[in-house]
């Protein structure tokens, strides 16, 4: 009798739970279904590329000595001198102590720029001007202090930066004796340190302009950069002693980096606010960490894109390419940053990603043809913000530079291709989604 009921119940149960569906995805080979949206890449915006030489960059407090000369084939002779100061020692000579010798100890930090196979000559000179900040808050690549033209010592060597060895440079004995005597007399002086620096203002490493073609980096720390005085006593038996004059203030150590611009005189009387187009610099723009040069990229016809309707910017990527054959070693992509700049050519706003970290490029190298070697900056967030208010300020531009922590830390350089050569010119790739809300 109740078979009807049972079947009926079964049916209801199946019905209640029977919304099951499973379907594999079928790839269509013709567009029989029309998509309602289109993806369009716009990468033909006209671009202006130029070089900006910053009026100055801070080089003090970088904890790095950069000393040497380098004949840059594109720019001219780059000279880096390094200034520092040592402080009053912890121990001073005893009454009967006798001076032997004095040395400056420097230590390779591993960095070099140029040809280290060439002999290098450094001289150590005594500052005649006190190493101190006056009105400014730091020293710059353009800062200069007076020093005695007669050197206290010199080092002629084949640099071995990767060894990270210490190098002791013997200094003038008379100078050593003078320091030694000063220390002997000033044992109980309360203001001994300050007084001492009035007496011994500091040292500068000066490269010989005629020798060598490399700029070498040396470490800045209490144990790697110091002046050592060797002495002895002969009370009962001979006893050798050392007096260490450590580095005084890391924040006062700085590098003076300059270029004679002989190979590119257009930079000779540069001002930061006047960018120099690549047409005047051999279709190359410069990014140089030591000289404070960055590449400015502007898009004169960008405002045309505002007129697009029913579209959304999905992605924006800026590609910059190294000028072919000019960069044997490309700087690490993590060293770069991108900024918004304007008519003043300042590094106005650092571009950041949605997570708050700075936008960094990705380096892709094309070892076969070099044509697809580029640094790509994902500047989507920035461009979306630019487009969002419906107005593009024609004065705004982008600046590609070494990031602040790499600036003035090296002489690293990237030559960016200009617009005269289609293969190496920068490219802004904008991916737009055109949609249809119907």
């Amino acid at each position, binding site marked *: 009798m109740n078979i009807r009921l049972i079947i009926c119940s079964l049916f*209801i149960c199946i019905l209640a739970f029977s919304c099951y569906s499973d379907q594999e*995805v079928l790839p269509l080979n013709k567009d029989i279904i029309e*998509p309602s*949206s289109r993806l369009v890449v716009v990468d033909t915006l006209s671009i202006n590329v130029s070089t900006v030489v910053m009026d100055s960059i801070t080089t003090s407090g970088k904890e790095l000595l950069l000393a040497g000369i380098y004949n840059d084939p594109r720019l001219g002779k780059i000279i880096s001198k390094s200034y520092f100061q040592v402080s009053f020692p912890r121990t001073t000579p005893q009454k009967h102590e006798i001076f032997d010798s004095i040395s400056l100890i420097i230590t390779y930090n591993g960095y070099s720029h140029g040809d280290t196979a060439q002999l290098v000559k450094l001289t150590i000179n005594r500052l005649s001007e006190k190493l101190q900040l006056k009105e400014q808050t730091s020293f710059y690549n353009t800062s200069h202090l007076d020093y005695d033209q007669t050197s206290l010592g010199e080092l002629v060597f084949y640099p071995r930066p990767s060894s990270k060895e210490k190098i002791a440079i013997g200094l003038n004995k008379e100078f050593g004796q003078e320091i030694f005597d000063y220390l002997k007399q000033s044992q109980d002086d309360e203001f001994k340190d300050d007084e001492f620096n009035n007496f011994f203002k500091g040292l500068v490493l000066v490269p010989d302009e005629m020798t060598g073609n490399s700029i070498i980096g040396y470490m800045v720390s209490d144990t790697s950069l110091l002046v050592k005085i060797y002495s002895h006593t002969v009370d009962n038996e001979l006893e050798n002693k050392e007096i260490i004059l450590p580095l005084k203030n890391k924040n006062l150590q700085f590098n003076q980096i300059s270029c004679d611009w002989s190979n590119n005189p257009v930079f000779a009387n540069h001002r930061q606010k006047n960018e120099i187009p690549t047409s005047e610099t051999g279709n190359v723009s410069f990014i140089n960490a030591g000289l404070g040069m960055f590449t400015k990229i502007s898009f004169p016809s960008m405002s045309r894109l505002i007129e697009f309707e029913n579209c959304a910017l999905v992605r924006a990527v800026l590609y910059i390419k190294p000028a072919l054959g000019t960069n044997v070693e490309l700087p690490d992509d993590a060293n770069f940053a991108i900024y918004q700049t304007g008519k003043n050519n300042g590094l106005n706003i650092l571009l950041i990603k949605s997570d708050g970290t700075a936008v960094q490029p990705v380096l892709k190298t094309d070892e076969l043809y070099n044509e697809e070697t580029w640094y790509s900056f994902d500047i989507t967030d920035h461009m979306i913000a630019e487009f969002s208010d419906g107005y593009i300020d024609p004065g705004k531009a982008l600046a590609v530079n070494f990031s602040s922590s790499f600036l003035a830390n090296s002489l690293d350089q990237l030559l960016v291709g200009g617009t005269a050569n289609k293969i190496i010119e920068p490219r802004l790739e904008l*991916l737009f989604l055109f949609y249809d809300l119907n």
Partner: protein
Amino acid sequence: MISINKLKVLFKLYFKGIIFFAIIILPLKLHAQYSLNSTYSFFGIGDIKPALPIRSEAMGGASLASPSENYINNLNPASLSRFDSTSFIFTAGIEGYLSSFQSRNVIKSATDLNFNHIAFGFPVKKWWGAALGVSPLSRVGYNVTLSLPIEGTTNFFETKFSGSGGVTQYYMLNSIHPVKQLSLGINVSYLMGTIEHTELDKLSVFDYPDVTKTDTRYFRNFYYLFGLQFDQKIGKHRLSAGITFSPHQKLKIRHDVEILIPSVDTIRSEPDSRDNFEMPIAIGAGIAFNINSVFELAFDYGLEKWSDVENSFRRARLTDSYHYNFGVEFSPAEKLTRNYLREMKYRAGVYYQKNYIEMRGNEILDRGVTLGAGLPIGRGRSTLDIAIELGRLGTLNDGLVQETYGSLKLGFNFHDYWFIKRRFD
């Protein structure tokens, strides 16, 4: 100890509960859940394939001239007045599909198990029959990818299109027979459904999250269909004819589009943008010839004038759709016998249907064969109906998609008497 009688009362209560649940609750749940799998359901309101009683499904869909005797023939509302004036019917059906899709030389498959119909039929007067029910009218279900060019580059990206949903028909059939041979009927239904189309642009090749466009359309409106049936006994035989007609009608569409571009923006259409989907004039005609209550032959023809309506689809052209359905039913036993196989009914049919869209100049045809059986249950007129269908939709021409499908449909007709209490049990 619970007596047998009490148990029976409990069963009756239980059964009434089930019916209540089925009529009230299920349609709410079932609404917009179908996904018959067909690439062609991308267009309009999807594949229009009204759910038929399983008996008709087994007979190639031929149903227009058949009376509702112990099932509910929702295809022609005029059939309800043939209803036994002392009984009622509760009927429900499910269907399972297994399909394969071919586009050039790629073949993919799909399965689908779904609700087919629920209906409740009852006599109002001796000359007036009525039924309430719910069944899908159209269904959308597709899942395809397309490789599209990124304009301005030589690159391609993949877009995945998928769709689901459909339009459900909540119907009330009323039928009268003013004279013995003639029945008139009307189907007043409320069509309601949600269809969701999703377009997923896969931009991961650019290290970018995918862009998703979701297009949701809510369809609703009343829909009317008129029917007429004629029935004449010729000796031991019977000749029936049926005609249905529905005028040009409109479905209201509320339309919401949302484009989600991760970490950028969500773009939305104007809220509540409205539109219409036009349903064309549709006519259907069928004849059925019953020979000695042993054989029934049925033939249907239908035409829908889609070329006259204004709907516009991308990449597809509207074209008049038509269908031919032919079916036969064999009932070996005229009366109750002890032989169950003889008590069963055997059915078979064929159908040939032209879809209402035409693509790249190709007609989209749906054709197939059906087989089925009616299994009597218990001593009454309740049956379990089974239909098997094997069909093919579409073409491989011009990069189109051909679908080969098989389906199994089960329907249960619970038939009982309103007023007569059985004396012997």
